[in-house]
């Protein structure tokens, strides 16, 4: 049920909630709370880092990433980030902020 609404606000777990281990083309993320190892590609590790401790929506996050990352056009980028955020929420790596 990956509903990619660009207005939705998300929060990432704090950085110490996971171990990030880059391996060649992919990155391993060990999530301490679930004990699950996720294998992810770009831009997921960058997204988690750029979110920090703030509640952000896709557009805000896309703008933050644009500084260091080529994500194509502004609108495409926000749509892509919104999709990734919805997937990450399903995995429990980020959480949708309720009541917002």
């Amino acid at each position: 049920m990956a509903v990619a609404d660009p207005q939705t606000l998300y929060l990432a777990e704090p950085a110490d909630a996971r171990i990030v281990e880059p391996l060649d083309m992919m990155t391993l993320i060990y999530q301490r709370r679930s004990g699950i190892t996720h294998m992810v590609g770009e831009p997921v590790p960058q997204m988690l880092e750029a979110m920090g401790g703030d509640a952000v929506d896709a557009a805000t996050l896309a703008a933050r990433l644009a500084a260091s990352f080529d994500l194509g056009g502004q609108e495409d980028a926000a749509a892509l980030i919104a999709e990734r955020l919805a997937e990450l929420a399903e995995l429990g790596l980020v959480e949708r902020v309720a009541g917002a």
Partner: protein
Amino acid sequence: MSRDAMLLVDALREPASTCGLDAQGWAALLSMARAERLVGTLAARLASEAVPGRVAQTLADARTDAGYQRRAALWEADCARRALADYDGKVVLLKGTAYVAAGLTAGEGRHIGDLDILVAREDLPQVEAALLAAGWEWVKPDPYDDAYYRDHMHELPPLIHRTRDRMIDVHHTILPLTARRTPDAVGMMVDAVYLPSRLREGLGVGPRSSIAVSGPPPTPPASGRGELCALSQPDMVCHSVAHLLADGELDGGLRNLWDIHCLLSEFAGADFWTQLRERASHHQLAEPVGRAVRLAHQLYGTEIPQDWMGQHWQDRYYAARMTARDGWGRQTRKLLRLAFYIRSHWLRMPPLMLARHLWVKWRKGQASA
């Protein structure tokens, strides 16, 4: 070699009793504990005992495993919480997951399998739809089993998550609808208490702080939306007893009774014992609760008030059934086990329905043979 599982009961009740064990006594104790799924609990109980080095390593393995089960159980509960974030009713954690989520001693080292939750019966379709949308799937597509579950059982047919491979049992009553006793599930839901947001320790934020985005946090949560619950203290004991004595053939009885021992010891207090008496009779569980309290006292030395003491002539059969396990981890006392097996089916279903159930199962067996 010890002839029954009193070796295990003694070790749980009084960890220092293990100091006299030789190597083979330890092997017997570990086999019994694994067979009863109490090895994690045993390891937690013996954490500060001086045990031989080899034994310490084996117990450390059991603690690692219990840590994994705890982590996985809490994570499954949190996944269910997120899946049901838009559901307004209470989602009540049951059994092992509830004990660890509530930080109770009954959860220390406990084996935890499936996730069990209790929701209001009328909300089942909504809960079911939300879980299916979040990646859970039916385990068996068999229509008879399905209809059987819906018509007669106290839970939905089991669901399994397609990527995490973990089961969830969604209950709407405490015992099967066909059982003789009918505990008041609605009353349990009403009294269920919201858990502290410990589930989200790692995330560091709960709805309460995140609501700050749009206004000050209400405490306690006004709707409880997105929060998980556990049963009230007396109901938690009643529920545990229902599964030990009113429902089962007493498989895993020692573990269930250990839960009850821990709950009673932790909740003890004059008010609690009064409430337990009231709730037990309200749920038509006065007799089983009384028996479980006596058995916990007899086997695990639980401290209980004078007016709960006593001895019923059948108690020793229950105790004998629960400790029917030898030093190789094998079940003993076959006849006694058979008696409890028949009794358990008798308790769950009226005779005609039992006959129908066994008939359909048998026919299906023939058809597939």
